């Protein structure tokens, strides 16, 4: 009896509620990932005057489901010479990093899985876990291409986190909080109050508008680098490194990488939405504002940025690894510092 009581005590009070709250982002993540895969296929096709998948369901909308069904059936290969524990662990770590970020993402004012005070910081911290997974996967595969891809990825993600963090930090300065909910609330009242236009305030905020605009752009660029998307997809650059760090992965493990990539895309798009583009707020002030609309606006804006990422991918060539560093350290970083400096000054004066 005692043991049962002990186990029972271990289970928190609102066990079911916790499970539900944890599951909602997971379901959202899976549905979104399927949609994003389809979106990627379709948008790339339309840009290239093609049609994309057409023969799986009407207009090919069942394509991602077929892919999942296929990937489940694929043989799960582990190379003989690979370091098996690390090799098998890597995709889970990457997926975990992506999924954990959803813990603080405020979908609506009534659905924030975990409303912690250091939300922005948490997202950045958890987002960096992915790089550990990439290195693990790349190194454990015992493949030279994977190793090269992993090495490039580390250098890239570390250097692009700094300008990205600078951009986010200036938002924290403007909102005087790291709490994502508070940041959202600070942008209420229409498109003009979003942080991309300097946030709420009187006309003297015009001084900071150019800087916030640049910072939002800087964050968009560094988020591309963090998610390994073109023009920064050198860790998996197909024409050089075959498939980069996931060269040796097959079946569901590869699907994990695949999902995590799209999940990360959503996370960075969500952060961009929250910090600069008003989060759940409607662009028309109180019009179309409310708990239901919150989800609509938030997901809608995030999807828009996901689409922008896809659009960029099918437009641009990719950078070389040293140019990537150049852009990161010599272009984005100085610009973000300058902008941050001015925004801080502005806050001090106000």
């Amino acid at each position: 009896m005692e043991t049962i009581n002990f186990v029972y005590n271990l289970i928190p009070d609102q066990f079911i509620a916790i499970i539900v709250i944890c599951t909602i982002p997971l379901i959202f993540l899976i549905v979104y990932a399927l949609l994003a895969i389809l979106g990627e296929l379709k948008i790339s096709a339309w840009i290239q005057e093609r049609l994309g998948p057409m023969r799986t369901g009407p207009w090919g909308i069942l394509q991602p489901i077929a892919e999942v069904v296929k990937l489940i059936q694929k043989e799960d290969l582990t190379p003989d010479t690979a370091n098996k524990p690390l090799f098998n662990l890597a995709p889970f770590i990457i997926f975990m990093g992506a999924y954990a970020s959803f813990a603080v993402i405020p979908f609506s004012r009534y659905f924030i899985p975990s409303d912690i005070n250091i939300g922005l910081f948490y997202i950045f911290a958890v987002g960096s876990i992915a790089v550990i997974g990439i290195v693990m996967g790349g190194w454990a595969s015992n493949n030279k291409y994977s190793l090269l891809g992993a090495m490039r990825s580390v250098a890239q993600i570390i250097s692009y986190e700094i300008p990205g963090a600078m951009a986010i930090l200036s938002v924290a300065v403007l909102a005087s909080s790291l709490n994502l909910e508070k940041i959202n609330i600070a942008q209420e009242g229409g498109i003009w109050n979003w942080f991309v236009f300097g946030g709420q305030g009187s006309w003297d905020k015009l001084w900071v508008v150019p800087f916030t605009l640049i910072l939002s752009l800087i964050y968009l660029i560094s988020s591309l680098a963090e998610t390994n998307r073109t023009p920064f997809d050198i860790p998996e650059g197909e024409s050089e490194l075959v498939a980069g760090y996931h060269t040796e992965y097959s079946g569901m493990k590869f699907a994990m990488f695949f999902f995590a990539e799209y999940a990360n895309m959503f996370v960075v798009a969500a952060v961009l939405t929250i910090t600069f583009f008003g989060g759940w707020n409607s662009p028309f002030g109180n019009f179309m504002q409310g708990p239901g609309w919150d989800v609509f606006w938030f997901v809608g804006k995030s999807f828009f940025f996901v689409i922008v990422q896809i659009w960029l991918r099918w437009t641009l060539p990719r950078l070389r690894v040293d140019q990537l560093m150049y852009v990161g350290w010599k272009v984005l970083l100085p610009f973000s510092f300058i902008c941050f400096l001015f925004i801080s000054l502005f806050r001090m004066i106000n």
Partner: protein
Amino acid sequence: MGLLNKLNEPYEAGGIILGTFEDILNWGRARSDWYLHFGLACCAIEFMAMNASHFDFMRFGTIPRATPRQADFIMITGTVTLKMAERIKKLWEQMAEPKYCISVGSCANCGGPYWEHGYHVLKGVDRIIPVHVYVPGCPPRPEAFQDGMIKLQKMIKEEAIFRKRKKLEEDSKIELSA
């Protein structure tokens, strides 16, 4: 008899549930075939043309993968030389099951124009790896590639997973006894 007991039985006895389940699995494999980004010779140019906008191979749910680990089928598009044959065999072995092979063009089918005096040409890729569909032509039209793809999809759809498992077991038994 539970459903699980029926798993090892042939499809005919499996009834509707297993049949539908198998259909869904087959549907997934047939509709989402990723191919190895791999070209050998002349047919590879038509292969590229087939991927381009006018013919758009991606309509069939195919995505090019650069690594054999993630590929479901390989298109041998061109002449297989003896020097290359060992590599192709290796590539085939690196691919994860279930995997398929389409041999495209005369050269891959049987050496094509080079079958007579080609001292350095492998006369047919089916000498080293199993081939599921043969597409004739030199080079085939892009539509012919797609015709081969449709035939492959048809073949996958009619595959019997559970029956195959049973058959494989029988085969292994025979092997063991022999």
